[in-house]
């Protein structure tokens, strides 16, 4: 159940990361369209907020929010590592990949 919260916040962080031009280019091979940037950001933040629910559900309101805030930071950190070292993993069918990671 807590893993669900971690997964939600982690996906949120990755999706927000993909709204950034450089990372989008690395994964999908082309810069994102303007509308897509807003959609990715919106979806990412929604996932982050949704990620609070499992923690609040298990740990209660106050502790749940504190735990969620901490998990957010660590999920974002994990997302940075993924986007840095394994960008193609997020692309559908491997994507076109980046030039740095043949």
């Amino acid at each position: 159940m807590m893993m669900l919260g971690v997964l939600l916040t982690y996906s949120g962080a990755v999706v927000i990361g993909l709204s950034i031009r450089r990372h989008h280019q690395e994964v999908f091979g082309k810069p994102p369209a303007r509308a897509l940037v807003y959609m990715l950001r919106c979806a990412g933040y929604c996932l982050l907020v949704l990620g609070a629910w499992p923690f609040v559900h298990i740990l209660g309101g106050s502790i749940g929010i504190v735990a969620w805030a901490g998990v957010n930071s660590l999920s974002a950190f994990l997302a940075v590592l993924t986007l840095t070292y394994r960008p193609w993993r997020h692309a559908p069918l491997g994507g076109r990949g980046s030039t740095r990671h043949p």
Partner: protein
Amino acid sequence: MKGGVTQSMAWAHTWLGLVAGWMLFTVLLSGALAVAKPEIDAWTRPEQAASLAPQSVAVQRAQHYLAQEASNATWWFITPGPPGAPLTVGWAGAAGVGEASLDPATGEALAIRDSDGGEFFADLHATLHLPVWGLWLVAASGLFMLIAVVSGTVIHKRIFRDFFTFRPGASAQRAWLDGHNVAGVLALPFHLMIAYTGLVSFFWAYMPAGIEVAYGGDQVAYFQESTLRVERPEDTRPATLASLPAMARLTERSFGPEAIGLINVKNPGRADAVVTVYRATHDRVQLHGERITFDGATGRIIEPALPAGPVNVAYRTLAGLHFAQFGGGFVRSLYVALGLAGGIVVATGAVLFTIKRGDRQRPGTRAANAYQIIERLNVGMIAGPLVATGAFFWLNRLIPLETTERHHLEIQGYFLVWAGTLVHGLMRPARRGWIEQLGLLSLLSLALPLLNLATTGDWIVSYLERGDEARTAVELGFIIAGALAAGVTWRLAASTPTRPSASGRASRRGHAS
């Protein structure tokens, strides 16, 4: 004017960061370890095998023990702990003070090695193991941390665009800066929170003006009034203390089952005895639980659990956020990870300082020499406390059990090793210093489970089999720390020693992936 603000912020960030950074690193590292105090306590006291017993049984054993061993004391405390934790009792009186760990099921005193365990790191975190002015030094570093976090945010102009940017393959300076920014920005809410709540928790020491004016400097009077301690008229006639387990059962109606955090008994053998039962705080953010006060001689409730005032609740919540007594192992592991992220920010910042500025100096000049000394001090001030922490755990297993003042020796060992790393760091070229000390750290950490196996017959595998989560977590921590240190050592040793700024061009290093 914007450039002016950014520049002055950059100045503050750079120089305050360097001055406070060395101290701050130790404060953050020991703070992260202090959060894991229950786990570290368990590992540093391997004899401590607590059996499962309900709190009412534990309280009964504690009362029996204290009545035999400390009947003349003026003050007792009992911490029954959650099921599975040892039962700790303590006393103070004319005959002196004492403390004992008991088996909660049998009430027998456990022969436990004399070690400060996690308490040492809590002390290092709060006062740097110094007299009272250590508290002020830590306060100063907390204030510097707040300034560094805010000024760092201001000078980092493209904070959101660079949010996810980490380029380990870029130039050394770029990679360090990215690491510094990523760890700093992502853990920013935690760093702000922990620095602020750390300062607020000890406001009575740092900002005593209010207490000075309102209470004429009488801090004891302030604390008595703010916690509304129950005062009773003195009555020195001897009286038998009523049954503590019965009082514990009465508190269950308000607190729920197994929710006692602490029991305080004032004047246990007298007619004016007062028993205060505090609620455990593991299921709420606020520090210090509600309490119920009993007449010790009769066992009747003098004061039921009262709701705290708004100011008190605010203080308890802020202090509770800092001390992280809630949410169990999950929340504590988050605090440890985010605290160590703070350590990474400071360490990378200190390294950046010398990379960015030291390389601009012409070799041989006085400035270049000064930067070289800073660069070498970085080794002893950052790798040093890490190595010393490893040594502390080694000493915990190596110092003979019957040694007098054993816990002092462990602490002296910590500081001696740290002093040794400072001297070593100054004597060696900075690169070699980092490689040798981090290499030593990885050896010390990775060998700790084996040392444990050799000295106590237990290690991570037997802990895992027994389901001993606390000690497994500590040994897992040793292995992770050792692996990370080995990884950094390996990368440092494998990378070319020339700096990119010397050639004016980014030297590309191979990817770890």
